[in-house]
């Protein structure tokens, strides 16, 4: 057992737990942040994507012991920001959402991309989201959503 001090969506937490537990389980089970989804549990699908100190990570691959002092942003945090709202709107208008299970992770990957590159090309958007799998959409409308968010939200990132 260890005490892990970290911040999630701007709120500080001190959690006594097994340091080998997955960040995904801490978020879903202890903090009830169920916008983070488990699609594969092995870092392949990206449904559990969160930002750890601004870097896009698969939370199923992160032991909580490595999160001491870090700042985590989940879909619940991002959706309250102007950037998050811009992505949500752009996804809705682009038809990017079907079953929705991959979509919160897609939103996190989109945020991570736009922070680094606020006006990506289609190819750059495809590359940035290539770690997030979707079985419904065939991706075209998700990519449209990313490009629309960049265009509409110009100046936000």
């Amino acid at each position, binding site marked *: 057992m260890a005490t892990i001090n970290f911040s999630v969506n701007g709120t500080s937490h001190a959690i006594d737990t097994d340091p080998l537990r997955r960040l995904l389980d801490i978020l879903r089970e202890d903090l009830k942040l169920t916008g983070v989804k488990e699609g594969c549990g*092995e870092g392949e699908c990206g449904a559990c994507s969160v930002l750890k100190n601004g870097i896009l990570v698969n939370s199923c691959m992160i032991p909580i012991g490595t999160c001491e002092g870090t700042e985590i942003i989940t879909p619940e945090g991002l*959706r309250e920001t102007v950037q998050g709202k811009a992505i*949500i709107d752009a996804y809705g208008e682009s038809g990017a959402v079907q079953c929705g299970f991959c979509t*919160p992770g897609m939103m996190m990957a989109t945020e991570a991309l736009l922070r680094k590159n606020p006006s990506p090309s289609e190819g750059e958007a*495809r*590359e940035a989201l*290539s770690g997030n799998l979707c079985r419904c*959409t065939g991706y075209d409308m998700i990519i449209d959503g990313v490009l629309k968010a960049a265009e509409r939200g110009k100046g936000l990132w």
Partner: protein
Amino acid sequence: MNKKISTSIKRVDAGIKTGGAARYIGDIPFDGLLYGKIVRSSRARATIKSVSVPALPEGYYYIDAKDIPSGGRNRIEMIKDDWPVFADEQVRFIGETLGLLVGPDRKELNRLRDEVQVEYEDLTPVFSIEESEALKGGPIHGEDNTYADYRLKKGDPDAAFAKAARVIEDTVRTGFQEHIYMEPQGVVARTEDDGKLGIFFSGQCPFYVRHAVSATMGVPEDQVRVQQAVTGGAFGGKEHYPDVISTPLAVAARKIGKPIGLFFDRVEDISFTPKRHPSVTRFKTALDEEGNILGMDIDVRIDAGAYESCSMVVLQRAIFSVNSVYNIPNVKIRGRAFATNNVPSDAYRGFGAPQGLFAIEAHMSHLARAIKVDELKLKQQYLLKQGDVTVTNGRIHEEVKLPEIIQRIDEMSGYSKKLKEYTPGSWKGVGVSLFNHGSGFTGNGEQEIIKGVVKMRKRADGLVDLLVSNVEMGQGLQTTFRKIAAMVLELPVDSVVYNDPNTDLVPDSGPTCASRSIAVVGYLVQEAAKKLKDRWKESDIVEVRQQYEPPEGLIPWDQANLQGDAYPSYGWGANVIEVEVDPLTYEVTTKGIWAVHDVGVAIDEKVVEGQVDGGIIQALGYGSLEKLEVKEGRFQQKTMADYTIPTTMDFPKIKSALVDNPYEYGPFGAKGAGELVFDGAAAAFADAVQMAINGDVKQIPVTPEYIMEVREDGNN
């Protein structure tokens, strides 16, 4: 085009899903939830001698067939009821449910599961269609290992073959496909405050679950309440399988008296849930001196796995699809579904049609190559037209707009021009496929089995309740059903209340499958809305009901002989795909994807386009990447790292269009779309590859390894 209905609106569920606020089955809090873990067979075919469960810590339970209440049955009542809830004396596949461990800690459950000792007496298993047909180890099912053995005849095939100048034989194979819905299977069962058994699940068919659970528990159906949770994709994989896991869970929840959740992780989901049926289709085609097709003799075999479930219906759709859009004058077809000791095969988007359609498209392309004619010209010579006879001696009742579809896709893709420009074998290729898909249940399923009912209620607050059992699972039904009702009632879309169905609150409008939700149930929604509009001023609260009736003018269906109109209407389509093949590695790069479909009228253009995009990419996975091998009854790929589905990087942007063709008995003229859009891409991809490498492609997935085999076989 009915502009008003087809014009896209923002999906009603987009915001709540993107922000992570939508609650899927694993996101719903249940007080005091225990977890279930299935104890599975490690043998493919064996007699169970004994099961020894370790001493269980307090608060842990082992549930098996002995816990089924008196009056209940150890059978999962799906279309067939041969699949037991808990294995009965024998096991028939690796992963079959022996029992269920229940307790508070999932790690502890895994430990306990590994300590369950099972003593087996092994029997000789069969793992392929060929071994099954040879009755290796004695039959698993009946006397000949076939769950179904059908024969169809149209015209006079024997006379056609007697006249033939030449007979061409061809065998085409398709593989397993795993659904990879992004959300794995999950279900929760508990006893409700009113004493009913409550089931919460991710899936397609709430009333299927209710029926199966009530039969297992031996209680009336209204003593089981099923609530669908937001569902993270299904594609057929959550049509029947939720019955397989909710039945043992119900037994446990009733006995233990606490809520229990059963949630699969991805490895368990890939390893033990059903897949698309593998198929082997053998053609013999009789040609005259000029290369005209006189007749076909077709033998379709599918691997149905260890239990029948719905395989005979999948087989029906496969054989009804194996002449696709072609009017071949004289045909005989045999179709057989074989029992094997593989994981049972079951529903997957297309339900047998993708296998049949791939087979005939591959065969037509091979015929064209063999007799050295233009493939599209050969196909155009035999296109079905309105009034033509189908392989079940039914008729095509609607106008067939394939000529317009073909012209349109040729303009969009430059197919004919590229066909002239590229030399076969130059590592560049362009391929085409044509296809159709019957909307709704096969044969008389809608009127004899489903008998769908829709209700609609004007509420005192001016909102309208839309009461149906069909579910949103990603395909956009929350949006399209509301649009249909709202447009008839001339109300804003958000005045229509349509919740995820609860079987206590909605009538049984049937399952969410078979491209029936819009085509069949959507029409009932439209008709109910018309009734409600007429009676709007009667009172503050007005409720109307609409029951399915078959369209007029159909040739009645004879289920015993599979004769008549198998489907009242069809969607139609064409795909063109362009590829380049690396001459050293045989890796295929897709350079372009084009699609034109007739889905009647789009209820929402963006929703249909989303189906087109997603269906085509899923089908390209089926046709190229998604290799799933079975060895001694175990899938060799069981993670998302080794069973690879398409990513954002694998295929270019799709260019698609719709051809308007309103259908009288569809809402605003709409027909089914969800499966049609899956049906053509694998064949167009394979066709493009065979041009690029100048060799016949006879199986999917078309992997680089398979391309190497074709090349080394000397352009077979």
